[in-house]
């Protein structure tokens, strides 16, 4: 194995910093504390959303438990001018893009398909169709290239795009086609694959006989394998890949090796297909614990900070509980909006039909 194939790790599961010949972290103590805070808060967000689903307030939820470091580490490497395309599991990335957790819940409660303002957050809504968005992201990156928004040397305006997807998605044609377009046009894109070991019930080895990052070679882009439970390393490799993209050096594939600690979604029962001992193995590698140990041992994490953070987490959860229940159901007639840019005779007629049904229902 040469250096390329080795997994990048900057903090191990005991909370010890590791030096890597290729990547140095630029994060100071305050930045590390802030990443820690993000991870604690999104874990709380995830826990609360799961509970809301159990209470019947959400139709479904896809937990991110265990993937906090991959999502926060990469998400915090983004700049505001960048653009994100993600799957249904990237609540932590949405958090980094400033999306309010209650907005996220609208999708899972079934009140909206695209639950937040994509243009404002520069991240489009959860993509459910596996892999489809890898091509959209690549096209967006091609656009940035065509528009001359890369390689100017101005770090505040040069743009990069990130496509998030899972290990399962690596099998879809769309993702593989995206690699080809991105390398052909040297597009400013980072493909961030969270290999959480499972695609519902199928282990990663069902999708690939080699490390996913090694696929990159055949397509002609750099492939980096990073410890996905190491927030410092995830931040470092994503920062570098984004810089490459913004400066016009082309695409990168990052495989963040992590673990889906929870169920695929709240409809799933992982005891049907995986051993509890796997969970135990990965629990030892928890992404939050290791940073906490480091921060604690080095006197960076103070008791007051912890207390305040716990209170923040509790009030976030409380707000989610209250505001989720207050989310208005859409007006039935809204289903006819936005099918086309203008009006459409068939739809207008059907809308009138429903208006009549609704008014009759009110009378009865």
């Amino acid at each position, binding site marked *: 194995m040469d250096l390329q194939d080795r997994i990048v790790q900057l903090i191990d599961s005991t909370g010890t910093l590791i030096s890597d010949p290729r990547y140095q972290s630029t994060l100071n103590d305050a930045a590390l504390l802030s990443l820690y805070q993000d991870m604690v808060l999104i874990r709380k967000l995830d826990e609360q959303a799961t509970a809301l689903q159990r209470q019947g307030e959400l*139709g*479904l939820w896809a937990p991110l438990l265990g993937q906090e470091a991959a999502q926060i580490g990469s998400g915090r490497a983004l700049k505001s001018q960048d653009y994100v395309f993600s799957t*249904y599991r990237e609540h932590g990335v949405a958090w980094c893009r400033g999306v309010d957790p209650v907005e996220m819940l609208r*999708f*899972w*409660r*079934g*009140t*909206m*398909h695209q639950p937040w303002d994509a243009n404002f957050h520069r991240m489009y809504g*959860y993509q*459910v*169709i*596996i892999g489809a968005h890898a091509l959209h992201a690549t096209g967006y990156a091609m656009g940035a290239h065509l528009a001359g928004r890369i390689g100017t040397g101005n770090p505040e305006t040069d743009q990069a795009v990130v496509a998030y997807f899972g290990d*399962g*998605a690596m*099998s*879809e*044609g*769309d993702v593989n086609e995206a690699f080809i377009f991105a390398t052909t046009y040297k597009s400013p894109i980072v493909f961030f694959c969270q290999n959480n070991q499972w*695609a*519902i*019930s*199928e282990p990663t080895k*069902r*999708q690939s006989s080699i490390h996913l990052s090694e696929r990159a070679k055949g397509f002609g882009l750099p492939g980096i394998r990073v410890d996905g439970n190491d927030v410092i390393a995830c931040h470092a490799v994503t920062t570098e890949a984004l810089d490459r993209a913004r400066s016009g050096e082309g695409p990168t594939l990052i495989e963040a090796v992590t673990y889906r600690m929870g169920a695929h979604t709240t*409809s*799933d029962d992982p005891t*049907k*297909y995986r051993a509890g001992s796997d969970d135990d193995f990965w629990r030892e590698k928890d992404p939050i614990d290791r940073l906490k140990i480091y921060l604690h041992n080095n006197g960076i994490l103070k008791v007051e900070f912890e207390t305040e953070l716990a209170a923040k987490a509790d009030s976030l959860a409380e707000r989610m509980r209250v505001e989720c229940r207050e989310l208005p*159901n*859409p*007006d*039935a007639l*809204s*289903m*006819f909006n936005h*099918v086309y840019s203008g009006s*459409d005779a*068939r*739809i207008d007629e*059907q809308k009138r039909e*429903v208006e009549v*049904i*609704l008014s009759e229902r009110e009378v009865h």
Partner: protein
Amino acid sequence: MSEFTLLNAVNRGLRRAMEADSKVILMGEDIGKLGGVFRATEGLQKDFGEGRVIDTPLAESGIVGTAIGLALYGYRPVVEIQFDGFVYPAFDQIVVQLARMRYRSAGALFLPITIRMPFGGGIGSVEHHGESPEAYFASTPGLRVVTCADPSDAYWMIQQAIVSDDPVIFLEPKRRYYQKGEVDTTLDISEAPSMYKARVVLEGSDCTLLSYGPTVATSLQAARMAAVDGVSLEVIDLRSLSPLDLPTLIESVKKTGRAIVVHEASSSGGVGGEIGLCLMQSCFYYLHAPILRVTGYDTPYPPSRIEDDYLPDADRILDAVEKVMGY
């Protein structure tokens, strides 16, 4: 007679088909150890092995494309598409390759492949989990498209689909998966009614409701409500959308003189239009009123909080009944 849920009937039908023919293999995402996200294939990998119940990589085009190769080799693949909304990556392989192999090889090659998928809405889930894509397939020459509405049909029709030498799109009404019903498993497959025959589920004299899959139960509910008002509705379960069993449909509509097609899929370009025109051609002089349809609207499937307003319900069917009766 035994009582099963529709889901369990699919499972038992698959098992029986696998016992009957060792060339029958199942392919799909999460169908092995997990038994499918709905558990339609539960226990089958344990009993038939990983060679016959195959967990595939996550790639629908790949699944259908390799199923075609396996069929050319002599296997009889049964593909599970996890949800209706995920069939589209395989669309090219289905409508361009699978549907045409017999024709373009002048009969030398054939593809006895069954593609099962749960379809239809009403389960409160997120985007892409409530689609009704049947019209795309029913309008594709070379494909057979069938759907079951009760456990007995689920049990027999899946077996008939598998023994068919034509490719069959087999649609399972997911929101009726837990509906129970009697299944006579003692029959031989040759004794079960053909999957291409429509069935009169309820006899009536005033108007025929033509329905399939999840809306058969909705139509029956409407018929019960209409009966209270003295209107007698005949309910037909189409079962097969391609081919349509026109003789059965025509006989009913000639008798009642009125017809309403009910389906969840959008109205424009839906199978309702096809059925209506066929009936008009054959029953023109028997019709007392125009043929109507009660369907999903011409919008993408809406967020689940308003899906009940999108899906045809008994009230909307009764509104249409009132219109044709008062014509």
